């Protein structure tokens, strides 16, 4: 704030202005300046240490090399898009020509089967993680509510939950792969096996935080509210709908946020091994490829993975604040 240009009538107003400008400055420092400083220090240290690490694929990529790869990944996406467009154009021309020769000709429409670009892979990953997370939520939330309402059921299931909760996705994956291969047999599959395997692995790992939080949320509802429900003689379904669900929404959402975080982490590992064409496969393919750019491209993927994970959490938080009555979260 430039206080010399402001007309100051009284000392108190000047003071107020000073205070206000102090507040704005301190907020600016907290929100913008300090994070920038942190990032700058990180980039500096990264740059220095990268130069001193020599791998069989050359020097470890510094920030510049990674930025370069971001550009080239985007260029590849654009080029691939143009190729696809050209393909469809050629197909159209060819079909039109054939149709002109023979009016009875039934045009064959083929889809372009070019290489998937980095952006396509991001979308595949997002679709897979969302599908896996939703499957987990569909199972975990109703089961969690049931467990929260029924102490016996909770006692019965709790040991199983505690044992399966810490299992790594890498342990589940071979089992899931084999089961999917055995059971998902179809001539015209709607989705690929690799997608299904990744999705189910994500579900298996992201189920638990939601299940635990939901059941705790439900079982710890204020007993006064339960008494209100008893006095009103609410039928079970109304009781769940009007009392249990709203009361435990904050806890359910905390569980969902934890689960989404887990799901995103698990997804990358699952895609790597299941060869689902997402970010995990991208990292794995670059690693196998072993060109001089590979490490920089993997590093670019790492940053993208982190950034998307952060954004997903923000989105969940926004939804939570919209849905939940408890605005203090």
């Amino acid at each position, binding site marked *: 704030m430039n206080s010399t240009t402001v007309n100051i009538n009284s000392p108190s107003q000047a003071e107020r202005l000073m205070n206000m400008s102090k507040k704005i400055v301190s907020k600016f420092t907290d929100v913008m300046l300090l994070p920038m400083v942190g990032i700058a220090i990180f980039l500096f240290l990264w740059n220095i240490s990268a130069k001193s690490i020599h791998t069989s694929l050359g020097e470890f990529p510094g920030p510049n090399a990674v930025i370069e790869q971001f550009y080239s990944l985007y260029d590849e996406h654009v080029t691939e898009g143009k190729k696809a467009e050209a393909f469809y154009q050629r197909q159209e021309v060819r079909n039109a020509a054939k149709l002109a020769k023979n009016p009875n000709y039934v045009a064959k429409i083929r889809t372009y089967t070019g290489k998937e670009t980095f952006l396509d892979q991001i979308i595949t990953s997002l679709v897979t993680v969302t599908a896996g997370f939703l499957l987990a939520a569909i199972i975990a939330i109703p089961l969690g509510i049931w467990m929260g309402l029924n102490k016996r059921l909770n006692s019965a299931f709790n040991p199983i939950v505690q044992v399966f909760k810490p299992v790594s996705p890498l342990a589940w994956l071979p089992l899931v792969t084999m089961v999917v291969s055995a059971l998902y047999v179809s001539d015209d599959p709607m989705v690929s096996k690799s997608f299904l395997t990744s999705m189910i692995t994500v579900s298996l790992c992201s189920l638990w935080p939601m299940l635990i939080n939901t059941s705790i949320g439900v079982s710890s509802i204020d007993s*006064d509210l339960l*008494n209100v429900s*008893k006095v*009103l*003689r609410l039928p079970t379904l109304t009781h769940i709908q*009007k009392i249990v669900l709203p009361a435990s929404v904050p806890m359910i959402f905390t569980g969902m946020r934890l689960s989404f975080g887990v799901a995103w982490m698990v997804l990358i590992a699952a895609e790597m091994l299941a060869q689902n064409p997402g970010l995990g496969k991208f990292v794995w393919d670059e690693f196998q490829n072993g060109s001089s750019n590979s490490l920089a491209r993997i590093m670019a993927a790492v940053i993208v993975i982190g950034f998307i994970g952060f954004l997903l959490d923000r989105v969940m938080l926004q939804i939570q604040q919209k849905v939940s*009555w408890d605005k203090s979260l």
Partner: protein
Amino acid sequence: MNSPIQASSTNYPFLNISQIDMVFPTATGDFTALKDVDLQIKKGEFISLIGHSGCGKSTVLNIVAGLYKATKGGVLLKNREVNEAGPERAVVFQNHSLLPWLTSYQNVELAVKQVFNKTMTKAEMKDWIEYNLKLVHMDHAMHKRPDEISGGMKQRVGIARALAMQPEVLLMDEPFGALDALTRAHMQDSLMEIQNELNNTVIMITHDVDEAVLLSDRIVMMTNGPEATIGEILDVNLERPRNRLALAKDIEYNRLRSEVLTFLYEKQRKVENITTKTTVSTSEEKKLVNEA
């Protein structure tokens, strides 16, 4: 008052709390909270339950509400046994227990929809909800949520919710216990005003001697637990409508007040006083030992 109940079916007490025992199993053995609590209440009567904390007042209320089941004995409302909670015995809880995600209107609506869904049209329900909120002077904040209104206002909505169920008996568990003295006085006046209009049968738990005398037709004084029971019953025959200022100088009012005080602080003096004294003395002893 405690005349023996006659066998004829027309001459039963409106609400009969009949020889209740309540035993809670604990890790160290059974704990008898209530022993032989027996009380008959007439329709339209306002009863206060008073006693030291921990004497089982709330337990009695919860048994009448149907939230607890008595170990021995039982509760009869219009000669029918109370087995579960229900809207004909509406409860006003101490800390309002409004659903925090619903507005005042919606909180009352939940009760009205549940109780009158077969007998009222939508428009009638709306009128009934608004009538009850008006009764407790909360029509101005109908569409505010509990976190947007004060403690006294929350308790008003809680009372409106209970009244809206049109209960046979209104049970109030220290309804004004959490409020400051001024708000409490306001609420007591409101309650008397409502009571004038509706003449409900009420059982109210309280710690407050003035509140008990001001509001009640009878004050039921409970002995200290364990094995708490009814110590004395005091009839309050002050004329209604009652005015707190006029009563402050009233001889009868002050006699009743001192009766309750005598019961609480002489006859049923809380044992805790003695235990704190003994702990002080033991700590003094320790000091002496240390000094020696």
